[in-house]
């Protein structure tokens, strides 16, 4: 019942920097950035809930801006910077956002968490101490079905405090 193997669809080759590491990657040219990350770069931390740009689970930072990686083609990313959940830690140390989400119930099933973390990181970089409304606004495209969002808001707010503490310590 096995069919004769045929050539793969045409491949694309790009160079991109993911979490600070520059890589050359070869992938089927139809693939989205989400698929390239998960399937061709061994970075499964970024999740998918719809692959239509509706749920926010696949959010990553592209050149520092949050994007839905399921709506970006891999071939658009040549020479660009990508940041995923795998890049949040420094060495073996959790980012303050990660710490706060783990401690305060910001992650339940954890599936929306990578997308929310990178989106929140962008917010903290743009606005040092965001208001609750700013947090609500920036995360409006990230669906979470577990938490009801409130512990997520609190986790982001706590991360701001912890970021400040880390700065003071260093």
């Amino acid at each position, binding site marked *: 019942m096995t069919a004769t193997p045929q050539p793969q669809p045409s491949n694309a080759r790009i160079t991109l920097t993911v979490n600070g590491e520059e890589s050359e990657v070869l992938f089927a040219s139809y693939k989205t950035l989400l698929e390239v990350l998960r399937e061709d770069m061994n970075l499964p931390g970024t999740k998918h809930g719809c692959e239509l740009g509706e749920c926010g689970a696949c959010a990553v930072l592209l050149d520092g801006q949050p994007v839905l990686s399921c709506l970006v083609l891999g071939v658009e990313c040549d020479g660009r910077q990508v940041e995923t*959940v795998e890049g949040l830690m420094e060495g073996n140390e959790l980012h303050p956002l990660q710490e706060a989400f783990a401690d305060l*119930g910001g992650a339940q*099933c954890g*599936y929306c968490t990578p997308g929310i973390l990178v989106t929140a990181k962008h917010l903290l970089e743009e606005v040092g101490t965001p208001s609750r409304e700013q947090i609500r606004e920036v995360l409006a495209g*990230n*669906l979470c079905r577990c938490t009801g969002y409130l*512990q997520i808001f609190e986790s982001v707010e706590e991360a701001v405090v912890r970021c400040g503490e880390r700065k003071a310590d260093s």
Partner: protein
Amino acid sequence: MKGSEFQVVGHPRRRVDGRAKVTGKTVYADDIVMPRMVWMKLLRSPHPHAKILSIDPSRALAHPGVMLVLTGKDLTIPYGILPVSQDEHPLCQDKVRYVGDPVAAIVARDELTAFEAMDLVDVKYEPLRTFAEPEESLQHDEPRIHDYCGQGNIHKLINLQFGDMDKGFGEADEIFEDRFFYQGNNHLALEQHASVAAVDLDGKVTLWSSTQTPHYVHRALAKALEIPAAHIRVIATSNGGGFGAKSDIFHHEVCAAKAALVLGRPVKVCMTREEVFYCHRGRHPVLMEIKTGVKKTGEITAMHLKTLVDGGGYGSYGVASTFYTGALQTVTYDVPRYHFQGCRVFTNKPPCGPKRGHGTPQPRFGQEIQLDKIAERLEMDPADLRLKIVAKPNTVTANYMRIGTIGLAECIRRVVDVSDWKKRFRKLPRGRGVGIACASYLSGAGLPIYWNKMPHSGVQLKLDRSGGVTAFCGCTEIGQGSDDVLVGLVAEVLGIEPFDIRAVTADTDLTPVDLGSYSSRVTLMMGNAAIQAAENARDQIAGVIAKHLEIPRNRLVFADRRVFDAENPEHGVSFQEAVCLSEAKLGTIGAVGSYTPPPSPARYKGGGVGPSPAYSYSAAVAEVEIDEETGWISVPKIWMAHDVGRSLNPTLVRGQVEGSVYMGLGEALMEEQTFRRLPSRLSNALVHKFPSILEYKSPTTHDMCDVVTEIIEDPDPNGPFGAKEVGQGPLLPIMPAVCNAVFDAVGVRIDEVPVTPEKVLKALDLQRRGKEGRYGPEKFPDVPWPNPSVIPPPIEGGDGSAIDQPDSAKKKAKVNQP
């Protein structure tokens, strides 16, 4: 042997899997990649109801990269989650019953190739008459969607009468009759179902799957694949949300295992979001009629509930769901006489099943709105009315559910207090209002899905000279924190840190059976098994260490990673040393614990659905604002009090409460799984209106209200350290609380969910024209009910069995439902 202060229980702390989840390292099913792995797609029916005339896979098989096409003839044995509804096949045999019913499985070198080949499987169908609504299914016996049960297109009929209803209604001063409709909705778990199947090194098959119930999947695979269960391993990967969506056995799970066994290669399958909507197993649409007799003082004298349950195309959990639409109406308030009639029909839509609250939110919705109407008529405050009729602790209800602790009165008082209810109710300006509602829920189903006398949950502990402990349990992490409960309780008993314990869970090869993450059963059942196992281990160590320290056993304390003398804390050994000494004396240290729920006093046929070791209680106050021009409803705030018995990890408890409030808010205002017919020039098929996350509306951060969460702790003797459930119950009062608040705001009754602006506008329009300002169903259709089974309730001196029930049936009286 230990002090009264808990070291772990009750302290907010990071869940054991917290780090994995914030680093993106948790492995979900679709994250699994294996050497030589191939991909599967399911070809699904475009017809809602049709005979399959032929399936020809030859063009697909000739497509480059396609390795295998499975069809119905490759997998002919039926299965189903319930023993009474073995009505599904991995791939349809001779007919399809809803748009999305799978007819072929295509396996190819990559997902795109499998996807392309779907167009190349030639299936000929002969369309059959389609049933879109339960009323149509009731009216037409032919063609039958299934022919294995009952009559026509009726799947299940229930008629249980607990007592002399004429007497009950005769004692009433007022009788209320109302009809309500609860629209179906989807779980919308963010992770799309996925599975990977592979043949092991030794030739056995392993399935990794996003399932809440690996044990039931294991049993179904053994049946469908005709191989011994001992040669099948099911591993439930962390679920990216469940809410009931992943508690059934799915076509893709069986097909992936079969394909792996045929090809000898790992096979992966992942649903698209559209397929998830067609897999469904979500909330049943339910039409209800509730007749309640009350005294002028508010006490309920009798209640008669009828439910019409729209099951979709297959049985799934539906028989249990239908029983659940009646089982818990008596557990919240005192209802001395009760009559329940339930009917589930088949329609040509995706099968419905369990969603958070499983069958109970719908009748709870109706009852709580009706209570608001009763309070209005009796000129009572609806909170006071509820306080007056709260069910009593340590009693048996009219339908023989045994209630233990009940913290509902305290829940009501607390939400009334924190919401400033007395200053708001009927006192806010028009357009703003508050509403109250309550609920109760199971802490686990009292009976397993298939009849057996074995424990519902087992825990095994391995202790060794490292001082670490490994806890093995079949419990399944779906985000709710079951691994954390397991680890937390073992740590508490052994006096060590949660971080010292490794949890190995949800793996049928490695872990003792736990029935799964459904019916809010895990904390109570696994928790009791975990405590028993840990106490067993502690006792073994205590015997050795008491001798070693030369003190009586009852003076030993296990705390702070030490075992020591309560009267002289310096005199002791480290936990690691204690294990080493014990291992030297006793050999390898291991311990097991098991949990089986207590027997139920319900001895009648049908009494197997509803009993639980403990019931949780909730009360909620919702505030709404209505724009009378647009009908737009906003919910700025909800106050929620939940009786959890004991809060094991308060961070997680609050998360479950708020998550339930959120999901309830979605069901109250926007979520609905509805269908439309394609134009007849296309196919006239009955398709999902909006099988996408964008159009299936669910609350975003902007829609979510503020929540004030009050945790009531009234420890239940049946719960682990007194704990009861928290994952489902707090969802139930939200929908009726919102509707009751709408009435307080603008004086119209919306007797169905979701409460959309259109419905509010229609009711307001009727109100303006001097008619009854109401939106909701007008009538309940005729159903060919069988004669009732009459079960005298406790107040009539009943013993839990039906009149005419033969003695031999009393012992066996059971329905094997979740």
